[in-house]
């Protein structure tokens, strides 16, 4: 599986959980998806309209756009186990 993981993280400016989620995500990807991921950070404070694309309700939310199907993980990604499960990543 050499497919690149397309991840999108929705944040709200620099709220503590947004900052924490981005940091947790980077750490996770470097550990388990090194060299085959890209992260797009969308700040909904600046572009609230973009929430509609992925029907975002709570922030922070991580969306796995690829590989399909689309999956969401809500929260600050502090629980690594839940991130594994949410991304359906096989260790």
């Amino acid at each position, binding site marked *: 599986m050499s497919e690149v993981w397309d991840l999108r993280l929705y944040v709200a400016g620099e709220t503590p*959980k*947004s900052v924490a989620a981005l940091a947790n995500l980077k750490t996770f990807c470097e550990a388990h998806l090194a060299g085959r991921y890209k992260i797009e950070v969308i700040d909904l404070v600046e572009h609230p309209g973009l929430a509609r694309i992925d029907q975002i309700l*709570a922030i*922070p939310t991580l969306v796995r756009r690829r590989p399909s199907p689309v999956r969401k993980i*809500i*929260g600050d990604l502090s629980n690594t186990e839940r991130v594994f499960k949410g991304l359906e990543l096989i260790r």
Partner: protein
Amino acid sequence: MSTADPITENLTAEVKILRSRLWEAEETLRAIREGEVDALVINERRGEKVYTLKGADRTYRLMIEEMQQGTVSLTADGRILYGNTGFSRIVKLPLDRLTHSLLQQLVIPEHHALFESFLRRGWTEGRSQGEVILVAADGTRIPVSLSFKTLSLGEGVSTLQVVVTDLTEQKRIEELLVSEDLARAANIAKDQFLATLSHELRTPLTPVMAVVSELERDPRLPADIQESLAMVRRNVELEARLIDDLLDLTRISRGKLELERGTTDLREVIRHAVRTCCTQETAAGRLHVVEELAAADHTVWADAPRLSQVFWNLLTNAVKFTPDGGTVRIRSWMETGSEPDTLAVQVADTGIGISPDVLPQIFSAFDQGERGTARRFGGLGLGLTISRAIMERHGGSLTAASEGSGQGAVFTARIPFSAEPVRLAETAADSAAAPGEEDAGEPERSLHILLVEDHADTAHAMATLLSAFGHQVTVAASVAEALAAAAQAESLDVVVSDLGLPDGTGHDLMRELAARHGLRGIALSGYGMEADIQKSHEAGFAKHLTKPIDIAVLRSALRQIARAER
């Protein structure tokens, strides 16, 4: 199989979508509850808007999650919408097991009706409160206080908020308090019992003591009878001492051990104790008794009879527990450096010793080493408890040490070295009344004594003795007889009266006699508590003597009264 029914296929897809939406909703709730989310996107008419959760909200949420109390939101049908960590902790169930279950299921069946009434009142009146018992997942019963309050969520939806307070600890403390009260009451009852018991035990000893000590002095009796009499007297004295110990113990446990202090030569006290306890043993060659008292001044401000009681106890124990050929060593030394200087007196023996597990308990009442020891040596084991209390009352201490069984024991008593009164207020009047050696040589003045005593043997023995000392004695056995005798008598000097009389109390009698004839009096009582003495003084008695009556003390009291009358 591959030719699947299109309707089924559609339904399956729909279920999948519904499931994923449900999962997403649950995930969102979980993330909010666990504080992993701090902003929400709200759809408004003019488009999406982002609301970030301000610090205050986070604080409240954290507070609710972390608080010791449980909080639960209930739906109209009594199901749990949400419970916090505190509640989960109280009932020992994870939150996901609690959500959507009926709160009532956790209430013990006997309290279901009660619980329902709280719920009903909560919904109808907006708030209610009460206590029930819950059952935790591990089966423990948890008393809780429930406080209900309705909360409107808008759009006609309401929940019932319940704050759950665990009362386990509180109930435990309440129970402890109750049992402590009971224990205190039992203790008072025990003290009362001991006081009454010692009174009952003392009374019959009085006539025996009186007659025996008189007979002992009778030169007409042959030596072997004298010896037997001495033995009888010693044993009666021992009996009296055991009874005194019981009475002392009740004083100690009530914190009422009073001292009558005076300038005391501790060296004399120690030597006297050695003479009484050890002379026989040494003479019989059974033990070596070594006395090594420091050359320093041994003057202390103390209650001499109480201190001799301590050394008597320590030496008697040492002698009792040391086998033939052993050594009992009593030494004293001055300890300087701490303020004030301390005089230490040590009694060391080469006896059976004390095992380390027993050592910490030897100062507790009724303990006497191992059971086996108690059987071999008899006695109640009150001496050490009393001795320690006496030393502590003097501002000193009593400690014990032993290398173990068979290694001997060392007891060290310490007392502040101070010839001066430590506290001047201490019962100066009473210490003046202590059995006086100062007037021992004074010639007896003949008195006319009204002796009121309903115990015939005691009355007879005392009347005989008092007559022998040159007094004129009129005996009465009741209040009525005493008043009649007083009215008839030409000249009465003093009334000596028992307090418990068949037709009234000695106190009433004393008040009457003092009012009618201006008589002075001496009370005789089996009770020697401070309150008893106080009561006698209030009734007009000049002296209060405790049974068994030591004839020398009675004579001294009579002399003092005679002197005061002159």
